[in-house]
Protein backbone atom coordinates (compact mmCIF):
# COMPACT_ATOMS: atom_id res chain seq x y z
CA UNK A 1 0.00 0.00 0.00
CA UNK A 2 2.67 2.50 0.95
CA UNK A 3 5.10 3.44 -1.77
CA UNK A 4 7.45 5.85 -0.04
CA UNK A 5 10.06 4.35 2.28
CA UNK A 6 10.23 6.29 5.53
CA UNK A 7 13.24 5.94 7.81
CA UNK A 8 14.21 7.37 11.19
CA UNK A 9 17.38 9.46 11.15
CA UNK A 10 17.20 11.17 14.54
CA UNK A 11 15.84 10.41 18.00
CA UNK A 12 15.44 12.51 21.14
CA UNK A 13 13.79 12.16 24.53
CA UNK A 14 13.64 13.41 28.08
CA UNK A 15 12.17 10.92 30.56
CA UNK A 16 12.09 9.91 34.23
CA UNK A 17 15.17 7.73 33.55
CA UNK A 18 17.31 10.42 31.96
CA UNK A 19 17.46 13.69 30.06
CA UNK A 20 18.21 12.04 26.70
CA UNK A 21 17.77 8.79 24.78
CA UNK A 22 21.15 7.30 25.76
CA UNK A 23 20.58 7.62 29.51
CA UNK A 24 17.01 6.40 29.18
CA UNK A 25 18.08 3.33 27.18
CA UNK A 26 20.97 2.57 29.55
CA UNK A 27 18.72 2.98 32.57
CA UNK A 28 16.23 0.55 31.09
CA UNK A 29 18.92 -2.04 30.33
CA UNK A 30 20.38 -1.66 33.82
CA UNK A 31 17.02 -2.22 35.48
CA UNK A 32 16.75 1.26 37.03
CA UNK A 33 13.42 2.83 37.99
CA UNK A 34 12.23 6.35 37.16
CA UNK A 35 9.45 6.14 39.74
CA UNK A 36 9.78 7.98 43.02
CA UNK A 37 7.87 9.73 45.79
CA UNK A 38 6.37 12.99 44.52
CA UNK A 39 8.34 15.74 46.24
CA UNK A 40 5.58 18.30 46.66
CA UNK A 41 3.73 19.55 49.71
CA UNK A 42 0.39 19.08 48.00
CA UNK A 43 0.62 15.31 48.36
CA UNK A 44 0.13 15.60 52.12
CA UNK A 45 -1.95 18.79 51.97
CA UNK A 46 -4.67 16.96 50.02
CA UNK A 47 -4.01 13.63 51.71
CA UNK A 48 -3.79 11.94 48.33
CA UNK A 49 -3.90 8.13 48.37
CA UNK A 50 -1.28 8.13 45.60
CA UNK A 51 2.07 9.63 46.61
CA UNK A 52 4.29 8.38 43.79
CA UNK A 53 4.97 9.40 40.22
CA UNK A 54 7.52 9.12 37.43
CA UNK A 55 8.96 12.62 37.50
CA UNK A 56 11.51 13.82 34.96
CA UNK A 57 15.16 13.02 35.72
CA UNK A 58 16.21 16.47 34.48
CA UNK A 59 14.29 19.71 35.05
CA UNK A 60 13.55 21.12 31.59
CA UNK A 61 13.46 24.67 32.95
CA UNK A 62 17.15 24.33 33.68
CA UNK A 63 18.00 23.00 30.24
CA UNK A 64 16.59 25.98 28.34
CA UNK A 65 17.59 29.66 28.51
CA UNK A 66 15.72 31.28 31.37
CA UNK A 67 13.78 33.78 29.28
CA UNK A 68 12.64 31.09 26.86
CA UNK A 69 11.74 28.64 29.64
CA UNK A 70 9.49 31.16 31.41
CA UNK A 71 7.39 31.54 28.24
CA UNK A 72 6.77 27.82 27.89
CA UNK A 73 4.61 25.37 29.78
CA UNK A 74 6.53 22.35 31.07
CA UNK A 75 5.01 20.17 28.33
CA UNK A 76 6.19 22.67 25.71
CA UNK A 77 9.65 22.73 27.28
CA UNK A 78 10.13 18.98 27.03
CA UNK A 79 8.66 18.73 23.53
CA UNK A 80 11.18 21.34 22.41
CA UNK A 81 14.08 19.62 24.17
CA UNK A 82 13.25 16.22 22.66
CA UNK A 83 12.67 17.67 19.19
CA UNK A 84 15.94 19.58 19.19
CA UNK A 85 17.82 16.47 20.31
CA UNK A 86 16.29 14.45 17.47
CA UNK A 87 17.03 17.22 14.99
CA UNK A 88 20.71 17.45 16.01
CA UNK A 89 20.92 13.66 16.11
CA UNK A 90 19.77 13.61 12.47
CA UNK A 91 22.77 15.77 11.64
CA UNK A 92 20.82 18.98 11.04
CA UNK A 93 21.97 22.34 12.34
CA UNK A 94 19.63 24.53 14.38
CA UNK A 95 17.87 26.63 11.67
CA UNK A 96 18.52 30.34 11.41
CA UNK A 97 17.13 33.10 9.21
CA UNK A 98 20.14 32.65 6.95
CA UNK A 99 20.26 28.89 6.68
CA UNK A 100 18.15 25.78 7.10
CA UNK A 101 19.23 22.21 6.31
CA UNK A 102 15.69 21.23 5.38
CA UNK A 103 13.48 23.25 3.03
CA UNK A 104 10.81 24.66 5.38
CA UNK A 105 8.07 23.99 2.83
CA UNK A 106 8.97 20.29 2.94
CA UNK A 107 9.26 20.04 6.74
CA UNK A 108 6.33 19.14 9.00
CA UNK A 109 5.74 18.59 12.70
CA UNK A 110 3.40 16.07 14.31
CA UNK A 111 3.63 16.02 18.12
CA UNK A 112 0.75 14.69 20.16
CA UNK A 113 -0.17 15.30 23.76
CA UNK A 114 -2.93 13.96 25.96
CA UNK A 115 -3.78 17.20 27.69
CA UNK A 116 -1.35 19.96 26.70
CA UNK A 117 -0.52 22.55 29.34
CA UNK A 118 -2.71 21.98 32.43
CA UNK A 119 0.10 23.03 34.80
CA UNK A 120 -0.03 26.58 33.38
CA UNK A 121 -3.83 26.61 33.25
CA UNK A 122 -4.12 25.60 36.89
CA UNK A 123 -1.31 27.84 38.15
CA UNK A 124 -2.76 30.89 36.41
CA UNK A 125 -6.22 30.12 37.73
CA UNK A 126 -4.78 29.99 41.25
CA UNK A 127 -3.07 33.37 40.70
CA UNK A 128 -6.29 34.89 39.36
CA UNK A 129 -8.18 33.77 42.44
CA UNK A 130 -5.51 34.88 44.88
CA UNK A 131 -4.20 38.10 43.35
CA UNK A 132 -6.51 39.10 40.52
CA UNK A 133 -5.91 39.48 36.81
CA UNK A 134 -2.71 41.54 37.06
CA UNK A 135 -0.67 38.45 37.90
CA UNK A 136 -2.09 36.39 35.04
CA UNK A 137 0.62 36.03 32.42
CA UNK A 138 -0.17 37.39 28.94
CA UNK A 139 1.25 34.10 27.69
CA UNK A 140 -1.29 32.01 29.60
CA UNK A 141 -3.23 30.87 26.55
CA UNK A 142 -0.25 29.96 24.33
CA UNK A 143 1.16 28.06 27.29
CA UNK A 144 -1.93 26.01 28.07
CA UNK A 145 -3.13 25.21 24.55
CA UNK A 146 -2.59 21.56 23.56
CA UNK A 147 -1.12 22.47 20.16
CA UNK A 148 1.49 24.55 21.99
CA UNK A 149 4.21 21.89 22.15
CA UNK A 150 3.94 21.06 18.44
CA UNK A 151 3.63 24.73 17.48
CA UNK A 152 6.76 25.74 19.37
CA UNK A 153 8.72 22.95 17.71
CA UNK A 154 7.45 24.09 14.33
CA UNK A 155 8.53 27.67 15.03
CA UNK A 156 11.91 26.62 16.37
CA UNK A 157 12.75 24.28 13.49
CA UNK A 158 11.04 26.37 10.80
CA UNK A 159 8.47 23.86 9.62
CA UNK A 160 6.02 25.26 7.07
CA UNK A 161 4.46 22.06 5.69
CA UNK A 162 1.98 21.87 8.55
CA UNK A 163 2.09 21.37 12.32
CA UNK A 164 -0.22 18.76 13.87
CA UNK A 165 -1.01 17.80 17.43
CA UNK A 166 -3.11 14.66 17.61
CA UNK A 167 -4.77 13.95 20.94
CA UNK A 168 -5.72 10.38 21.83
CA UNK A 169 -4.73 10.10 25.47
CA UNK A 170 -2.15 7.35 25.97
CA UNK A 171 -1.88 6.82 22.21
CA UNK A 172 -1.11 10.47 21.36
CA UNK A 173 2.63 9.99 20.90
CA UNK A 174 2.17 6.95 18.66
CA UNK A 175 -0.45 8.82 16.62
CA UNK A 176 1.99 11.71 16.36
CA UNK A 177 4.45 9.36 14.67
CA UNK A 178 1.84 7.60 12.51
CA UNK A 179 0.50 10.94 11.35
CA UNK A 180 4.01 12.11 10.53
CA UNK A 181 4.53 8.99 8.44
CA UNK A 182 1.30 9.77 6.62
CA UNK A 183 2.40 13.34 5.85
CA UNK A 184 5.37 11.91 3.97
CA UNK A 185 3.23 9.25 2.23
CA UNK A 186 0.84 11.95 1.08
CA UNK A 187 3.71 13.92 -0.41
CA UNK A 188 3.12 16.83 1.96
CA UNK A 189 6.60 16.70 3.47
CA UNK A 190 9.98 15.03 3.03
CA UNK A 191 10.97 15.32 6.70
CA UNK A 192 8.70 15.33 9.75
CA UNK A 193 9.63 15.81 13.40
CA UNK A 194 7.15 13.53 15.14
CA UNK A 195 6.42 12.32 18.65
CA UNK A 196 4.59 13.18 21.83
CA UNK A 197 4.90 14.88 25.20
CA UNK A 198 3.15 15.05 28.54
CA UNK A 199 3.76 16.92 31.80
CA UNK A 200 0.68 16.89 33.98
CA UNK A 201 1.66 15.72 37.44
CA UNK A 202 -0.55 17.96 39.60
CA UNK A 203 -2.91 17.37 42.53
CA UNK A 204 -5.98 17.30 40.31
CA UNK A 205 -4.66 14.83 37.74
CA UNK A 206 -3.27 12.55 40.44
CA UNK A 207 -6.55 12.82 42.36
CA UNK A 208 -8.54 12.15 39.20
CA UNK A 209 -6.62 8.99 38.34
CA UNK A 210 -6.77 7.91 41.99
CA UNK A 211 -10.54 8.32 42.07
CA UNK A 212 -10.82 6.24 38.90
CA UNK A 213 -8.96 3.48 40.76
CA UNK A 214 -6.49 3.04 37.92
CA UNK A 215 -3.23 3.88 39.69
CA UNK A 216 -0.95 2.02 42.04
CA UNK A 217 -0.96 2.95 45.72
CA UNK A 218 2.28 1.12 46.54
CA UNK A 219 3.59 4.36 48.09
CA UNK A 220 6.15 2.78 50.41
CA UNK A 221 7.98 1.09 47.51
CA UNK A 222 7.80 3.45 44.54
CA UNK A 223 10.36 1.56 42.45
CA UNK A 224 8.34 -1.64 42.72
CA UNK A 225 4.95 -0.08 42.09
CA UNK A 226 4.82 -0.36 38.30
CA UNK A 227 4.82 -4.06 37.52
CA UNK A 228 3.15 -4.86 34.17
CA UNK A 229 2.29 -8.53 33.64
CA UNK A 230 3.26 -9.35 37.23
CA UNK A 231 0.79 -11.19 39.47
CA UNK A 232 0.91 -8.40 42.10
CA UNK A 233 0.27 -5.40 39.85
CA UNK A 234 -2.20 -2.85 41.18
CA UNK A 235 -2.40 -0.05 38.64
CA UNK A 236 -0.17 2.29 36.70
CA UNK A 237 2.06 5.16 37.82
CA UNK A 238 1.57 8.58 36.24
CA UNK A 239 4.69 9.97 34.59
CA UNK A 240 5.93 12.88 32.52
CA UNK A 241 8.17 12.79 29.47
CA UNK A 242 8.66 13.52 25.78
CA UNK A 243 9.99 11.65 22.76
CA UNK A 244 10.66 12.83 19.21
CA UNK A 245 11.94 11.22 16.02
CA UNK A 246 13.01 12.65 12.70
CA UNK A 247 11.09 10.79 10.00
CA UNK A 248 12.65 11.20 6.60
CA UNK A 249 12.12 9.93 3.07
CA UNK A 250 14.60 7.05 2.71
CA UNK A 251 15.92 8.30 -0.62
CA UNK A 252 16.60 11.74 0.84
CA UNK A 253 18.33 10.23 3.88
CA UNK A 254 20.55 7.98 1.76
CA UNK A 255 21.44 10.80 -0.65
CA UNK A 256 22.86 12.86 2.23
CA UNK A 257 24.60 9.91 3.84
CA UNK A 258 22.51 10.09 7.03
CA UNK A 259 22.81 7.50 9.78
CA UNK A 260 19.61 5.46 9.58
CA UNK A 261 18.28 3.77 12.72
CA UNK A 262 15.64 1.79 10.89
CA UNK A 263 12.36 2.05 8.99
CA UNK A 264 8.88 2.94 10.06
CA UNK A 265 7.36 0.27 7.85
CA UNK A 266 3.74 0.66 8.77
CA UNK A 267 1.13 1.40 11.42
CA UNK A 268 -2.37 0.34 12.38
CA UNK A 269 -4.97 2.55 14.05
CA UNK A 270 -8.38 1.36 15.17
CA UNK A 271 -10.95 2.39 17.75
CA UNK A 272 -12.84 0.17 20.19
CA UNK A 273 -16.27 1.82 20.12
CA UNK A 274 -16.75 0.35 23.57
CA UNK A 275 -16.03 2.31 26.78
CA UNK A 276 -14.35 5.58 27.72
CA UNK A 277 -11.68 3.96 29.86
CA UNK A 278 -12.01 0.20 29.52
CA UNK A 279 -10.62 -1.83 26.62
CA UNK A 280 -12.93 -4.03 24.61
CA UNK A 281 -13.00 -7.40 26.42
CA UNK A 282 -12.30 -9.33 23.23
CA UNK A 283 -9.55 -6.99 22.14
CA UNK A 284 -10.85 -6.85 18.56
CA UNK A 285 -9.56 -3.32 18.04
CA UNK A 286 -6.11 -4.06 19.48
CA UNK A 287 -5.80 -7.20 17.35
CA UNK A 288 -6.84 -5.30 14.26
CA UNK A 289 -4.40 -2.47 14.93
CA UNK A 290 -1.49 -4.90 15.04
CA UNK A 291 -2.80 -6.79 12.01
CA UNK A 292 -3.25 -3.60 10.01
CA UNK A 293 0.31 -2.53 10.81
CA UNK A 294 1.62 -5.83 9.50
CA UNK A 295 -0.51 -5.57 6.35
CA UNK A 296 0.71 -2.03 5.65
CA UNK A 297 4.30 -3.19 6.08
CA UNK A 298 3.76 -6.21 3.85
CA UNK A 299 4.73 -8.57 6.66
CA UNK A 300 3.16 -11.49 8.52
CA UNK A 301 3.07 -12.34 12.21
CA UNK A 302 5.98 -14.75 11.74
CA UNK A 303 8.18 -11.77 10.87
CA UNK A 304 7.49 -10.02 14.18
CA UNK A 305 10.25 -10.96 16.59
CA UNK A 306 9.47 -8.42 19.32
CA UNK A 307 6.54 -6.51 20.77
CA UNK A 308 7.03 -3.44 22.96
CA UNK A 309 3.82 -3.66 24.95
CA UNK A 310 1.60 -0.80 26.07
CA UNK A 311 1.03 -2.75 29.32
CA UNK A 312 0.44 -0.16 32.03
CA UNK A 313 0.37 -2.50 35.04
CA UNK A 314 -3.42 -2.58 35.43
CA UNK A 315 -5.02 -5.86 36.37
CA UNK A 316 -7.42 -5.96 33.43
CA UNK A 317 -5.54 -4.01 30.77
CA UNK A 318 -2.42 -6.16 30.78
CA UNK A 319 -4.41 -9.37 30.26
CA UNK A 320 -6.44 -7.82 27.45
CA UNK A 321 -3.31 -6.81 25.60
CA UNK A 322 -1.59 -10.17 26.18
CA UNK A 323 -4.60 -11.95 24.66
CA UNK A 324 -4.56 -9.59 21.71
CA UNK A 325 -0.83 -10.06 21.12
CA UNK A 326 -1.20 -13.85 21.17
CA UNK A 327 -4.03 -13.66 18.64
CA UNK A 328 -2.53 -11.04 16.34
CA UNK A 329 1.12 -12.08 16.46
CA UNK A 330 1.50 -15.35 18.37
CA UNK A 331 3.33 -16.61 21.43
CA UNK A 332 6.76 -16.33 19.83
CA UNK A 333 7.64 -12.61 20.01
CA UNK A 334 9.96 -11.43 22.75
CA UNK A 335 7.90 -8.95 24.80
CA UNK A 336 8.89 -6.08 27.06
CA UNK A 337 6.83 -3.52 29.01
CA UNK A 338 8.86 -0.33 29.55
CA UNK A 339 6.21 1.36 31.70
CA UNK A 340 7.60 -0.88 34.45
CA UNK A 341 10.60 1.46 34.67
CA UNK A 342 9.36 4.66 33.06
CA UNK A 343 5.85 4.85 34.42
CA UNK A 344 3.02 5.93 32.13
CA UNK A 345 4.12 8.95 30.11
CA UNK A 346 0.63 9.35 28.59
CA UNK A 347 1.13 11.53 25.50
CA UNK A 348 4.86 10.91 25.63
CA UNK A 349 4.55 7.12 25.95
CA UNK A 350 3.89 6.17 22.33
CA UNK A 351 6.84 8.24 21.15
CA UNK A 352 9.39 7.22 23.79
CA UNK A 353 8.37 3.56 23.54
CA UNK A 354 8.49 3.72 19.74
CA UNK A 355 12.10 4.89 20.05
CA UNK A 356 12.85 2.01 22.44
CA UNK A 357 11.35 -0.47 19.96
CA UNK A 358 13.51 0.93 17.18
CA UNK A 359 16.60 0.70 19.38
CA UNK A 360 15.82 -2.92 20.26
CA UNK A 361 16.02 -3.79 16.56
CA UNK A 362 19.02 -1.54 15.99
CA UNK A 363 21.02 -3.05 18.89
CA UNK A 364 19.58 -6.57 18.79
CA UNK A 365 18.72 -6.20 22.47
CA UNK A 366 15.36 -6.24 24.27
CA UNK A 367 15.36 -4.50 27.69
CA UNK A 368 13.91 -6.35 30.69
CA UNK A 369 10.52 -5.61 32.19
CA UNK A 370 11.23 -4.24 35.65
CA UNK A 371 9.54 -5.82 38.68
CA UNK A 372 8.48 -8.92 36.78
CA UNK A 373 8.95 -11.31 39.70
CA UNK A 374 5.96 -13.59 39.11
CA UNK A 375 4.57 -13.58 35.57
CA UNK A 376 0.77 -13.75 35.74
CA UNK A 377 -0.10 -17.21 34.34
CA UNK A 378 -2.89 -15.62 32.26
CA UNK A 379 -0.35 -13.67 30.17
CA UNK A 380 1.12 -16.58 28.24
CA UNK A 381 3.88 -14.57 26.53
CA UNK A 382 7.68 -14.57 26.51
CA UNK A 383 8.24 -11.41 28.59
CA UNK A 384 11.88 -10.48 29.24
CA UNK A 385 12.74 -10.17 32.92
CA UNK A 386 15.99 -9.69 34.82
CA UNK A 387 18.66 -9.34 32.15
CA UNK A 388 18.29 -7.77 28.68
CA UNK A 389 17.73 -10.39 25.98
CA UNK A 390 20.03 -10.54 22.96
CA UNK A 391 17.93 -11.32 19.90
CA UNK A 392 18.37 -10.64 16.19
CA UNK A 393 15.33 -8.74 15.06
CA UNK A 394 14.09 -7.71 11.65
CA UNK A 395 10.69 -6.32 12.65
CA UNK A 396 8.96 -5.26 15.85
CA UNK A 397 5.67 -3.74 16.98
CA UNK A 398 5.08 -0.97 19.51
CA UNK A 399 1.60 -0.80 21.02
CA UNK A 400 -0.19 2.19 22.55
CA UNK A 401 -3.81 1.97 23.66
CA UNK A 402 -5.50 5.13 24.92
CA UNK A 403 -8.45 5.96 27.19
CA UNK A 404 -11.38 6.26 24.82
CA UNK A 405 -10.47 3.09 22.94
CA UNK A 406 -7.71 4.42 20.68
CA UNK A 407 -5.50 1.55 19.48
CA UNK A 408 -2.23 2.29 17.72
CA UNK A 409 0.45 -0.15 16.60
CA UNK A 410 3.68 1.11 15.03
CA UNK A 411 5.77 -1.37 13.04
CA UNK A 412 9.51 -0.75 12.82
CA UNK A 413 12.05 -2.73 10.83
CA UNK A 414 15.80 -2.70 10.57
CA UNK A 415 17.28 -0.75 7.71
Amino acid sequence: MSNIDVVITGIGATTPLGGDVASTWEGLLAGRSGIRRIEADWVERFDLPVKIGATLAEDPAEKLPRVQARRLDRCEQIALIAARQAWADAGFQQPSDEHTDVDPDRLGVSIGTGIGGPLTLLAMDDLLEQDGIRKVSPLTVPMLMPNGPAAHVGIDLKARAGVHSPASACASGAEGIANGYQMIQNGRADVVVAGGAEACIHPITVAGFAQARTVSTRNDEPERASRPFDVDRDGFVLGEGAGAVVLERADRAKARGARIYGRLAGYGITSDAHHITGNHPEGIGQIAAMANAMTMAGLTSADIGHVNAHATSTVVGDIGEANAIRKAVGEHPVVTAPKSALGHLVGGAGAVEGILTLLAIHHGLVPPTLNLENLDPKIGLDVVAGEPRKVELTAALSNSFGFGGHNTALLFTGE
Partner: protein
Amino acid sequence: MADKQEILSGLAEIVEEVAGVAQDDVSLEKSFVDDLDIDSLSMVEIAVQAEDKFGVKIPDDELANLKTVGDAVDYVSANAK
Protein backbone atom coordinates in the same frame (compact mmCIF):
# COMPACT_ATOMS: atom_id res chain seq x y z
CA MET B 1 9.67 60.19 43.52
CA ALA B 2 12.35 58.52 41.43
CA ASP B 3 14.49 60.60 39.10
CA LYS B 4 14.84 59.63 35.47
CA GLN B 5 18.11 57.76 35.95
CA GLU B 6 16.56 55.60 38.67
CA ILE B 7 13.52 54.99 36.50
CA LEU B 8 15.74 53.94 33.59
CA SER B 9 17.73 51.46 35.65
CA GLY B 10 14.57 50.11 37.29
CA LEU B 11 13.02 49.66 33.86
CA ALA B 12 16.19 48.00 32.53
CA GLU B 13 15.98 45.43 35.34
CA ILE B 14 12.39 44.61 34.41
CA VAL B 15 13.21 44.35 30.70
CA GLU B 16 16.08 41.98 31.45
CA GLU B 17 13.90 39.85 33.72
CA VAL B 18 11.02 39.60 31.24
CA ALA B 19 12.77 39.62 27.87
CA GLY B 20 16.38 38.71 28.62
CA VAL B 21 17.80 41.92 27.15
CA ALA B 22 21.03 42.93 28.91
CA GLN B 23 20.44 45.95 31.16
CA ASP B 24 23.24 47.90 29.43
CA ASP B 25 21.37 47.58 26.12
CA VAL B 26 18.26 49.25 27.52
CA SER B 27 19.02 52.87 26.61
CA LEU B 28 16.66 55.79 26.09
CA GLU B 29 16.70 55.93 22.28
CA LYS B 30 16.05 52.22 21.77
CA SER B 31 12.70 51.11 20.33
CA PHE B 32 11.19 48.20 22.28
CA VAL B 33 9.94 46.38 19.20
CA ASP B 34 12.45 47.31 16.50
CA ASP B 35 15.69 47.54 18.46
CA LEU B 36 15.15 45.28 21.47
CA ASP B 37 12.99 42.67 19.67
CA ILE B 38 10.34 42.63 22.40
CA ASP B 39 6.93 41.34 21.38
CA SER B 40 3.55 42.68 22.48
CA LEU B 41 2.98 39.96 25.06
CA SER B 42 6.25 40.79 26.79
CA MET B 43 5.32 44.51 26.69
CA VAL B 44 2.20 43.71 28.72
CA GLU B 45 4.31 41.88 31.31
CA ILE B 46 6.82 44.74 31.42
CA ALA B 47 4.01 47.25 31.92
CA VAL B 48 2.48 45.28 34.81
CA GLN B 49 5.85 45.00 36.56
CA ALA B 50 6.53 48.71 35.95
CA GLU B 51 3.15 49.59 37.44
CA ASP B 52 4.06 47.67 40.59
CA LYS B 53 7.61 49.00 40.80
CA PHE B 54 6.90 52.71 40.20
CA GLY B 55 3.32 53.05 41.46
CA VAL B 56 1.93 54.20 38.11
CA LYS B 57 -1.01 53.08 36.03
CA ILE B 58 -0.27 52.30 32.37
CA PRO B 59 -3.56 51.80 30.51
CA ASP B 60 -3.39 49.82 27.25
CA ASP B 61 -3.91 52.84 25.01
CA GLU B 62 -1.04 54.66 26.76
CA LEU B 63 1.15 51.55 26.48
CA ALA B 64 0.62 51.58 22.72
CA ASN B 65 2.26 55.04 22.58
CA LEU B 66 5.39 54.01 24.49
CA LYS B 67 7.57 53.13 21.49
CA THR B 68 11.01 53.78 22.96
CA VAL B 69 12.60 53.25 26.35
CA GLY B 70 12.75 57.05 26.65
CA ASP B 71 8.97 57.31 26.09
CA ALA B 72 8.44 54.86 28.96
CA VAL B 73 10.84 56.69 31.28
CA ASP B 74 9.13 60.02 30.51
CA TYR B 75 5.69 58.52 31.13
CA VAL B 76 6.66 57.02 34.49
CA SER B 77 8.37 60.25 35.53
CA ALA B 78 5.28 62.30 34.67
CA ASN B 79 2.77 59.97 36.30
CA ALA B 80 4.43 58.42 39.35
CA LYS B 81 2.94 59.50 42.64
